[in-house]
């Protein structure tokens, strides 16, 4: 969820810098880009103050690009990208490969049996035992965590990755004398990946799904909320995918998905820190030219139709209540998107924001309230979320009424000039702080590059935010925050039978 903030934050930073009279040419000066012949683009933000470098590989593929049956594959693939190559993570790839092929054949049989109308449990048991045996055998040739170990012994920190509905990203930082190590490892994991330990990693992913969604009341609530709010658009499916699909994905599916999507045209690489453009260019050419060009991924063409009326779901859990409201909102490309951040500030950021003041401070009816646009993504039209937790002795119903009243107030009377000004100032201060981190800045550039077509876009129409008026906010609330455009998910405490 964080990712959509970056782009927005970035947009706002510059507009405020412009309006505040800051000269950002010194930032622009540090940015350089180049594109390899295969179409792979690099964005570099230099900073030579400390000899460290951070890398972000941004792959323009995420949960939205999946189809039913393999939901969750983008995330699964992200896990598999740490499993090494034909050289890394193995003690004898030739022998290992043979076993991997055998395992695929057995898994094919398992799937065929499992998917048949009347699965033969005996056969399934036999195949599963076969698979277990092969897993043991394959493990003999695996050097577990080799990819990670190599990076770590060279001093890498922040080795991580994330998958959203919009994109998949890979992060790491190294001391700047180890840039070539990154070039070697990062390029080989995307040219010569080996999806080893696939069947074990599935177990890990299932544990991840259990802890994030099934054993987490808010996780459960959000999964339900997405499928309620979206009828057609793939944003309707939780990024990690349903258990049935996680269990069904095969190495074959993964290879096909990888080949179709992890191509130079679908990737942008961001680098920030103690690197010079010529140095990076040479390494990029030497190591990344072999990534196939591929085809630029088309947009998801499915459009979410206009919602016809308010939708609600109530789930009962052995946990305290929570209330989530979502309104369809436009994508990050739409001019209204930035206005939502101002609305956010006015509604929920800081103690003097409207909902905080009313619910948390005056009524003491809520433990907290937050709001955010661009859920579960902002590449396509997503959702504007208001999320709140009632205090003891208060109810979701009561909070919903208060939120409705506050929204109505803005629809009728708009917001005050002071409020809007304060929101702009706060965004400015918050964003300046965010800019301190080179990586935050880099993420903004990458998002702009992929979603708006050019990292420079971030510098262009940035005065928009300063231009927003109180009337614009009123219009925004009138247009989007109406009940027909809304879905509500309530988490209510299940009374435990005694």
């Amino acid at each position: 969820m964080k990712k959509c903030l970056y782009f927005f934050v970035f947009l706002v930073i510059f507009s405020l810098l412009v309006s505040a009279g800051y000269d950002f040419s010194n930032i622009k000066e540090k940015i350089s880009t180049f594109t390899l012949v295969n179409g792979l683009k690099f964005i570099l933000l230099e900073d030579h103050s400390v000899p460290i470098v951070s890398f972000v590989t941004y792959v323009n593929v995420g949960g939205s690009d999946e189809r039913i049956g393999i939901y969750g594959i983008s995330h699964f693939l992200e896990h598999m990208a740490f499993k090494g190559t034909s050289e890394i993570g193995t003690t004898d790839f030739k022998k290992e490969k043979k076993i991997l092929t055998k395992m695929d054949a057995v898994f094919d049989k398992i799937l065929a049996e499992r998917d048949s109308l009347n699965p033969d449990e005996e056969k399934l048991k036999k195949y599963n035992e076969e698979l277990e045996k092969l897993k043991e055998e394959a493990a003999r040739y695996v050097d577990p965590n080799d990819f990670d170990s190599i990076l770590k012994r060279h001093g890498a920190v922040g080795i991580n990755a994330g998958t959203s509905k919009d994109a998949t990203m890979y992060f790491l930082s190294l001391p700047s004398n180890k840039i070539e190590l990154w070039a070697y490892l990062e390029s080989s994991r995307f040219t010569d990946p080996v999806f080893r330990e696939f069947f074990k990693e599935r177990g890990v992913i299932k544990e991840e799904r259990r802890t994030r969604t099934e054993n987490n009341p808010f996780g459960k609530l959000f999964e339900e909320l997405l499928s309620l709010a979206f009828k057609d658009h793939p944003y309707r499916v939780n990024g990690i995918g349903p258990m049935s699909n996680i269990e069904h994905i095969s190495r074959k599916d993964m290879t096909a998905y990888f080949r179709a999507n992890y191509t130079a045209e679908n990737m942008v690489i961001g680098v920030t820190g103690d690197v010079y453009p010529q140095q990076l260019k040479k390494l990029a050419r030497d190591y990344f030219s072999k990534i196939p060009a591929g085809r630029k991924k088309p947009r998801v063409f499915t459009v979410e139709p206009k919602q016809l009326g308010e939708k609600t779901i109530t789930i009962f859990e052995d946990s305290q209540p929570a209330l989530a409201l979502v309104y369809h909102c436009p994508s990050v490309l739409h001019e209204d998107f930035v206005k939502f951040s101002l609305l956010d500030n006015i509604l929920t950021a800081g103690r003097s924001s409207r909902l905080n003041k009313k619910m948390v401070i005056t009524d003491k009816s809520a433990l907290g309230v937050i709001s955010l646009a661009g859920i579960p993504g902002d590449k396509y039209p997503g959702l504007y979320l208001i999320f709140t937790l009632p205090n003891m002795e208060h109810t979701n119903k009561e909070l919903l009424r208060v939120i409705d009243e506050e929204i109505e107030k803005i629809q009728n009377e708009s917001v005050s000039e002071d409020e809007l000004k304060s929101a702009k100032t706060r965004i400015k201060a918050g964003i300046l702080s965010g800019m301190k981190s080179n990586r935050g800045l880099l993420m903004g550039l990458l998002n702009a590059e992929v979603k708006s077509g050019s990292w420079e876009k971030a510098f262009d129409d940035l005065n928009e935010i300063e231009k927003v008026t109180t009337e614009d906010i009123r219009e925004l609330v009138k247009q989007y925050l109406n009940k027909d455009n809304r879905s509500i998910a309530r988490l209510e405490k299940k009374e435990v039978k005694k």
Partner: protein
Amino acid sequence: MKQVSLSKYFIVAAVLVSLSFSPGFAAKKKRLDQIKFPELNTFDLPEIKKTQTGNGIKLRLIKDEKLPLVDLKILIRGGDAYDPTAKAGLAVVTAQLLRIGGTRDLQPDQLDQRIDANGISINIGSNIDFFTISLSCLQENFSEAVSILSQMLLYPAFDKEKLEEIKTQFNSAISRRNDDPGSINNREFNTLIYGKDSPFAAVIEYKHIDNITMADIVGFYKRFFAPDNMLTGIVSPLEMAEVKEVFEKHFGSWTNTARIPPYPVVKQQMHDFKVGFAEKSNLNQSYLSIGHLGMQEDIRDFKEKAKIMVFNSIFSAGFSSRLMSRVRVKMGLTYRIGGGIDTEILYPGSTSFSTFTKSESTMDAVKAIFDEINIIRKEKVAEKELKDAKDYFLNSFVFRFSSPEQILSNALTSEFYGIAEDFRKNLVESIKAVTAADILETADKYLQPDKMIVFILGKEEDIRGNLSDLGKVKKIDISIPPPAQEKIPAPTGENLAKGRRIINTLIKGSYRGYKQVKSLEVLADTKMTISGRTLPVGVKSISLYPDKYYNEMSVMGMKVEVIVNGDKGVMRQMGRERPLPQEDIAENRFGDLFFILNTEGSTEYQYLKETEIDGNIYEVIYLFDAKKNWLKLFVNKKTGLIEIEEKMSKLPGISGIAREVKSDFRTVAGIPFAYKSKTYVKGKKVGETTIKRIKVNPPVDASIFHLEKKE
């Protein structure tokens, strides 16, 4: 648009290139071991300037001109470790109230607005060993921001209403603490290790929050918040002279001196069981921790610290660690596993490992962890494994200096704990010196599997195998103790006699008219506030003593009737009828002054105390019924009237003590009745009643008490 055509061009170009020239483009493929890495560029550490204000505030500054921003962080010795046992949470409540409780010159609201409108961010929080203040603002607002902070610290207003707000938030958080299995695991494991009342287990209960008074907060504040106890770090484009001037201006007049109490001692907990198990049957995973109390070695000795760091890295920290390799990668049993030997400075941390796994594989995960513990205690780690771990620290050392904020923050922590300034060199040398024998020794010294406790949270019936295979099992109750009940002193002959004496005075005195009462009819308007919404309720009640009662309420055009006849009763609402529980009938009678002031009944009286409220002196008496339900009467010493009543609220969704404050007394048939009353729960008004008419001994149509449904 240009962008699009450009990309198309690139696609075509790329295809052509890949067809014809591709092999020539790619460099000869190097193997990993052929890559030569240059030396790391040297870099200058920013200088940390040091000074102090006239009244002793230590200032540490790194000048950074990258952005026109100021970042400030203050450490104040104090914090959670010093919480009184019965008032856990006092430190953090104090910190929060300083932040939001207003100042001498600014109402809480004004304070919030001043901060928000200037884009300033100020947070005051509490850690185990210190309070922290963090402040960030634009350079141009620095003086304003420090001025606001100084007002918070020098002239806090400790607004009562804001304290209520904080307490409400805490209570709400307590009520939610069993919703997240990961935090239950942490909390309950720490409780086993440190004991339930230890500040290091840090379990805040309703009763603790309830116990915290304004006087506690003011006392805590005065004890710790003082200029000589403030270690301040600043990253900003400003010079030290400018920063110091601003601090002298706003904090210069502050003269308080901190009085730090002795640091609490950790008591080793003794358990006669090996496994603590807590049931949470809505989970399909178990969340578990394994470990024991740590040793308190002085890890300001870098040699010891270095060994622990390398050990943790090999065994349990990070992706390449043994636990991760075994339980996640090889077994596929979890998404996360971690822990290690703590390196706390002032108290013994714990040595502990935790993870979660699907319910069925709980025992497999526990056994795998113990297995790894036994291996690392028995066998020396391989030289390569050791070298990898050491190389990681040595090569990644530069990341400790990746930003001025981080450098300053580390420096503040070192200074706070008295860690030598040249730790960088010391630690590097110490890490280089760690041997495989050291790791074995560290494992043997800090990991004692026999002493380890296993805590498991999960659904027992889905766990494959027997928990008792691990050792003796104790079931742990994680249910949240309900908010504090009224603390009633033990009855004594003396307080019982005095209670009865006072009631007798009422029966014979101001309330003697009750003796003549046979029936009573009351017509009233009530406003009830439930869940933030106020509802008008019309009430008509008719009592035919001693055992018949009729009550009709109209709420939002709906009629609700309650009828009691003898020991039976019903409630009728929109044509539906349900019997009234016995306890409701009894309770209704218990609360009726007629029974208190007329009959001797089964009521017990107990005198509590004399108290002053709003300038009036009251004698406070408890009344108990047979089930030990209580009712508290406040009798005005001067007027002899019962002006306040308290009891546990039975209103739906409103828990706590309900206080009814009566006024507008009028005498009807020789009996004083309060024509107005307001009811409060936790200081919040939940009801207000105005009596329209009272009739004493009116004629009563007995048919209204018929329990059979009327046709």
